[in-house]
Each structure stands twice: as C-alpha cells, then as structure tokens.
C-alpha cells in the first residue's frame, strides 16, 4: 500500500541521494531532491557545466562507468522527481527546510514529512603555517578545479596531507599534464603495512590505490611518507613547501599546494534538526547517530552517505538505497526485506576496509603538539593556535563552544566547518583532555552565509 501523500525530501544529489531517489521512485513515490550543485553527481561524480566537452574517461578515470551509470540513473528520474538544483538548504527545523536558490537569489520554505539527508563531506583541514597564502587549496578543492572547471591549481604542485585522495589527486593531476613536484604523506610507510590485512578485504579498491602509487613512482613523482609539514612558503603567493623527515628539513619549490587529511562529514543539517550525536572513534568526530538502516533519533529523518560518517562512494550508494527502503517501510510501503538486509550486510562488510584505511592514513595525532603559536587556525576570524591555547590556560575554556565564545574561533563565514577540527585538537592538547571530551560546536543557521537582500525580497513577495 503506497501512502499517496508521501513526498519525502532528499537533500544532496550525490551517490547516496541519487540511489535514495531511485529507490523511492521505484516504489511509486515522488521525492523532492534538493542539491546545492548545478548538476547531480555529488562530489566524486561531480559533473562539469553542460557545455564542457571532456569525456567521462578523462574526467573520472577508473570510475567512469560508475559515474555515467549514476548520472544516467539520475537523468532518467527527472520526470518522476521534483529536482531543485543550485539550491542550498540553509536552515531546518522540524517539518520545514529553508532553501536558497542561487541563480535567482530567492528563498523558499519546503515542508517535509520525511527527510533523507545525504549531504556528503568536505575536506578535513589541519592548518600548516602559510596555508592562507594564495595558491594553497584543499585536496578536494584541487580536484574540483580539475573535474568541474577543467583547470589545475598550478603548473608545479605539491600535494600534502594524508588519505586516499592524496594519491588519487596526484595521479589525476599528473595525468592531466601538471608537474607534481612531490606527494608528501604524513602517514608512515609502516602504517600502510599494518593496514594491509584490512585493506585486503576490498582487493579491487586496494589494487586501485596501489596502481596510483605505482604509476606515480614509474613517472618519477617524488613520494615521501612519514613527513611533518613545516610551512608553506611565499611572499605574495606560494613558492615552496618545507617539510621535515624528523631529522632535517627539505624544501620543495612549487607554485601551488593541495592539502588535506581525508574528509569530514557535513553534519550541520542533522544538527539543526536535533539529531542526537555521539563520538565516533574511527572518524575522530562527533557524528549523528543512526541505526543500520539510516534512521536517526528524530522520527522521519534519515541519514545516508558520507554526511553520516566517511564511508566512500560505494557505501554511499548502498546507504542511500537502504535509507529509502527504511523510510518506505516506516510508512507502510512494502519493500524487499532481503534486499534491505543485503545492503546492511554490504555496509557492515566494508568496516574492516574502512578501519584499514584509517590505519594506512592515520590522523596525525601529534599535529596539535607541533602547531606553532603563530599558526592561524581560523582564517575567517584570524585566530591563532597561541590565542586558543591562551584561552584554555587563562580563561579555563575546556569545551568547544566556550572556546568559540571567548576567541571567535568558528564564528566566521565557515562556522567552524574548516577550522573546527584543528581548534578541537588544539583545545584537547592544551587541556590534556581526550579529543572527544572537548565536545563539538553547536550548529547555527544559516548553514552557509545567506544574502540579507534575498531574505527581504522573499518576504516582500509574500
């Protein structure tokens, strides 16, 4: 029995959101799909503007067939969904989403009875001295430039940090004809070795990773593991990266840097909706709680994909489908229970691999120890590591929201989405508390800055 009034809303048209939409449609339900991007695909399968002529093979490499599959699924759904592209959900409360349409600069309120949040992830940033220089990008940003705009961040680039994206982006850049001056991985080679057993549970993915590394080596790209970034150098823009091998410092000249430490989930929407959060050790983050199917602590709100914890694109597809099945079942629609169970099994089976990845590319837990006092942690508000430490020491701040109140860290345009990770690490180190005990920044609308003018227009029109 299909409830005729059921029109769930899906936020995000990445792998998770698209599979969720497909599943709902397959059960005769017409969802609203809201996505900030101009075209469906999400981060990994991000589509260039329609007039771009590059073929999927160039754009997505080994993922080309998955990308085209997902894109064509989404295209085929167009008449059966209400798709709102270029639309940012900037605020949420029980039963209502506020949505800003970019091109027309108007806002509108979208009611929902059921909601699947598939908001994905962004780069996890740990600042390094000089990271605010022009020419410095996040790894994901560097990749977006390539995928979306078809341009590179420089001619001679250094890629630094850790995580699978590090080698992938290096490979993609080198393939695109850019000189990759060095790949600097903060993980040690030994980490990668101990991670092997876990990684072997997904041999195909492991093979892809090894392939990138082998290809880079074969093409003479300098790969260094166990590095400690010292600083990014330059006057008006970046001209070199200085790193340490523990013994001595090395300087690599370059004209651009891409850096990042894996990804962090976009959890603001879940937060505004009042979902319960818990510390997730593997992700080193407070994440919204959900059951195996994606149900949150708030009835009618479901989570899928990287927005609920970084699990990768394949998992995002499965989780999107699973959440949609849960939503349907919760509203009395008959679904294939075996398929639901199978999806959950697949998601569970991915865990050893995910753990392997964490082992291979561990979070540099000593980052805070080595961050110099002068290091700018929050670039919106220009707050340094030293100021954060002083606040912990002199004002007794031992919790993130207090640190924010007293120093302004996380109060700027990014609202802590970039600086929050680093600030929490500094605070934990300064107070001697475990990282989970310093808490998390409370979410506040708007999720991203919204034009005042637009608000005014929408209101006047009513």
């Amino acid at each position, binding site marked *: 029995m299909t409830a005729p009034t059921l029109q769930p809303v899906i936020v995000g048209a990445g792998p998770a959101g698209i599979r969720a939409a497909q599943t709902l449609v397959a059960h005769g339900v017409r969802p609203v799909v809201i996505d900030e991007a101009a075209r469906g695909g999400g981060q990994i399968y991000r589509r260039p503007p329609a007039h771009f002529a590059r073929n999927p093979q160039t754009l997505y490499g080994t993922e080309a067939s998955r990308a085209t599959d997902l894109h064509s699924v989404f295209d085929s759904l167009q008449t059966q969904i209400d798709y709102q592209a270029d639309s940012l959900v900037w*605020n949420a*409360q029980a039963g*209502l989403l*506020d949505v800003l349409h970019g091109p027309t600069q108007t806002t509108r*309120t979208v009611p929902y009875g059921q909601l699947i949040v598939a908001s994905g992830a962004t780069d996890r940033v740990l600042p390094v001295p000089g990271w605010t220089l022009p020419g410095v990008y996040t790894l994901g940003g560097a990749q977006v430039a390539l995928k979306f705009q078809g341009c590179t961040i420089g001619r001679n680039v250094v890629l630094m940090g850790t995580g699978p994206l590090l080698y992938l982006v290096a490979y993609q850049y080198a393939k695109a004809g850019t000189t990759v001056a060095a790949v600097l991985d903060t993980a040690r080679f030994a980490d990668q070795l101990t991670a092997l057993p876990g990684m072997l549970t997904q041999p195909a993915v492991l093979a892809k990773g090894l392939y990138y590394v082998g290809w880079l080596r074969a093409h003479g790209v300098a790969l260094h593991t166990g590095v400690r970034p010292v600083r990014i150098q330059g006057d008006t823009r970046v001209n070199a990266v200085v790193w340490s091998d523990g013994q001595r410092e090395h300087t690599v000249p370059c004209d651009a840097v891409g850096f990042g430490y894996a990804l962090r989930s976009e959890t603001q929407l879940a937060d505004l909706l*009042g979902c319960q959060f818990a510390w997730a050790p593997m992700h080193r983050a407070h994440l919204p709680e959900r059951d195996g199917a994606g149900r949150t602590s708030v009835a009618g709100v479901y989570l899928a994909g990287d927005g609920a914890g970084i699990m990768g694109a394949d998992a995002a597809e499965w989780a999107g489908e699973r959440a949609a099945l849960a939503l349907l079942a919760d509203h009395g629609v008959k679904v294939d229970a075996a398929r639901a169970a199978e999806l959950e099994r697949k998601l569970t089976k991915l865990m050893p691999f995910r753990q392997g990845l964490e082992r291979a590319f561990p979070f540099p837990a000593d980052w805070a120890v080595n961050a110099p006092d002068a290091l700018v942690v929050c670039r919106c*508000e220009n707050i340094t590591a030293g100021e954060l430490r002083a606040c912990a020491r002199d*004002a*007794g701040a031992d*919790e993130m*929201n*207090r640190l924010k*109140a*007293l120093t302004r860290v996380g*109060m*700027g*345009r990014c*609202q802590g989405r970039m600086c929050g990770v680093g600030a929490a690490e500094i605070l934990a180190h300064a107070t001697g508390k475990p990282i989970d005990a310093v808490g998390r920044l409370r979410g*506040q*609308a*708007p999720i991203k*800055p*919204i*034009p*005042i*003018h637009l*608000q*005014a227009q*929408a*209101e*006047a029109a009513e």
Partner: protein
Amino acid sequence: MTTTRTIDTDIAIVGGGIMGASAALALRRKGVAVVLLERDLCGSRSSGVNYGGVRRQGRPVSQLPLAQRAHQVWANLPALIGTDGEYQRSGHFKIGRSEADMAALEAYANLSSDFDLGIQLISGATLRERCPWLGGRAVGGSLCPDDGQANPRLVSPAFALAARRAGAQILERTPMTSVEHDGKVFTVRSGNTLAVRAPVLINCAGAWAGALAAQFGEAVPIHSGHPAMAVTEPLPFFMHWSLGVEGGGIYCRQVARGNLVLGGGAGVALDADRARSERSAIATLAVQAVELLPALKNAHFIRTWSGTEGYLPDRQPVLGKSHTTPGLIHGFGFAGAGFQIGPGVGEVLAELARDGRSTTPIDAFAIERFLPTTVAEVASTAAAH
C-alpha cells in the same frame, strides 16, 4: 557510595549569569565569603548570548537609579574584571520614524532629565550630516552619547572569573537540585555530591528562577522569552552608534571587526533550556535592517541565534528580599534588558546580602507586587515571628 562535600559559607548564589557573578564579585570586594553554583558555564545563557547593548536610554525611570549605578561600574570595567570586554561608549541612537515617534523621544528626554543622561534630539539636516548611512525612513532620533555596547560573550564570563580570582568559590557544571531552609540556614544541594550551607541565598537563576521562588511561597508569573539575533559578515566600518527604534522592533550595532549584530523579533524555544532564531524572525529582521541601513543590501548573514530570558508581566525585574523567607534574596526577570544594569544589580544584591538593605531605590521591583495581598501579609507576619 558518593561522599557529599559540604561547604559552609556566608552567602550562596544560584546562577552564574551576569547578575550572580557580579554579585559574587561585589561580595568578595566587601570581604564576604561566597559560593556560586552554576549548572552550566558562567555566562553561557542570556548573559553571554545577548545583543550587547549597554544602554540606559529608554529604560523605565524606575530603573534609572540602578542603570546609573551600573554605568559607574561599566566605566571601571578593565580594572574590575581584567578586560574591557569590547565595551565602548559609542552612543546609543534611538530612531524616530514619524513625528509621533519624535514626540515620544522628546517626552522621554524630559522624563529622564533628573538623571543626567545627556540625551540630544537630532533631526533634519543635522541627522543626514551625522549619519549619511541612515535610510530614508528615519526622520530623526534621540542620542544618548555615553550609552554604548560591549561583547557579552567576554564580559559575563569575565565577571565570574574576576569573582573567582577575588576568592569566590565558583562551581561550574554544578546544578542546584534542591534547597532547604531550617529557619536560619539554607542547604543548597547539587545531587548527592555537594551541600552548600549559608544563612543567605541569592536567587539569580535567570529564566529558571521561578521554581526557587515558588518553593518559598512566592510563585510569580514569570515566562521565558527568546529575542532573535543575527550577525553579518564583516563590512567596512561605517556605524559608530548602537541603534534602536522608537516603539521597538529592530536594533543593531557594528563591532570593531566590522560585523553588524542585529536583534529584533522573537526566536523559538527548542526546549526549556535552549532557543534559536526563527526563520520568520530572521526574514523580518532582514527587511527592517535593509530599510534602516541600505548599506546592508548586499551583505550576508553568517549566523543567527537566540537565548532564554525571564520576563514578568510588567517587564520589570524582581529584585529584592524575599517576602516570606529571611535570608532569601531575588534578582531575576530582567525582560531582555538586564545586561547593562547587571553590574549595578550585583552591587545591590551584595548590599542586600550583607547589610540587609541597598542604597539604590529598588522598591519598584519588590516581589510583593505579584503576591496576593492576603498571602503576602500572612507570610510577613509569619516571618516576623
């Protein structure tokens, strides 16, 4: 088994907002022993999240003695609490949008003339000259040059920190879960881990103060309110004054960093403790803000928030001694306007606690005004025995 820590002290305070914390500091400056219980972090509620307006202009005349007293404390802020808390006597300008508004502003200037607020009425060409950034709806206004603004996130916790440095025991993350009075001494408990015993108890529990008053036979019609707040990205600095509007509505100020902080309208309660700005309130704020300050047209809001504040029907606080219970002192219900008078209230509470009376007139704020006369009389005779 948990052991209960017992602390004997002169004065116990419940609530570490600006009222409780400044009372603790004032008491320490008089050399009195004091223990303050704050269930969360000091200054994390109304006192730390308010708009930051430090204004006397527009207050009921009954509050002006208190506001003047506070004004003196604000003048010495760095020496007192070790930070300027971004306090500036930038001027508070109340905008009139009609001749009727201007008449009301003039009437207030006359009414408050005993208090030396230095109010100046400005209109016409002078107005355009002094504030070219004002939109066309303003016909004039009333400037109180020595009123201003401060950063509540910094000021309110700093009062608590200063009190601690001065020797007060400030116990954070320590909720009062029960209180008893044996006729002489209050025993304030936090779970079964702490008991604070003191002959005097000050109720500074903000929007949550009603329960404590009610327990001592002084139920008052307090309710919670949630002013809606928003802040823009930093903009080139153009506005020195903190602005209000005659008749209410919107208020805004620009901080040195360039952000504009705006308030107006009501937020929504998420639960008893938390609130947030509501969508429609943000939209209304935006419309009014652009009308008032056309320069905001192309700006962005980067954050919105609200807080939980206690209101009584006449929008005046309850400040003074309990009518039923000797040793109990109330200071709550500041109706969205307690930040400026907070440091003055702290001094008054300290006087009441130590001397039994205050040099500042506070009769207008007596809790008796909400108590049925008969009950109040019975209670007062009972207390006299």
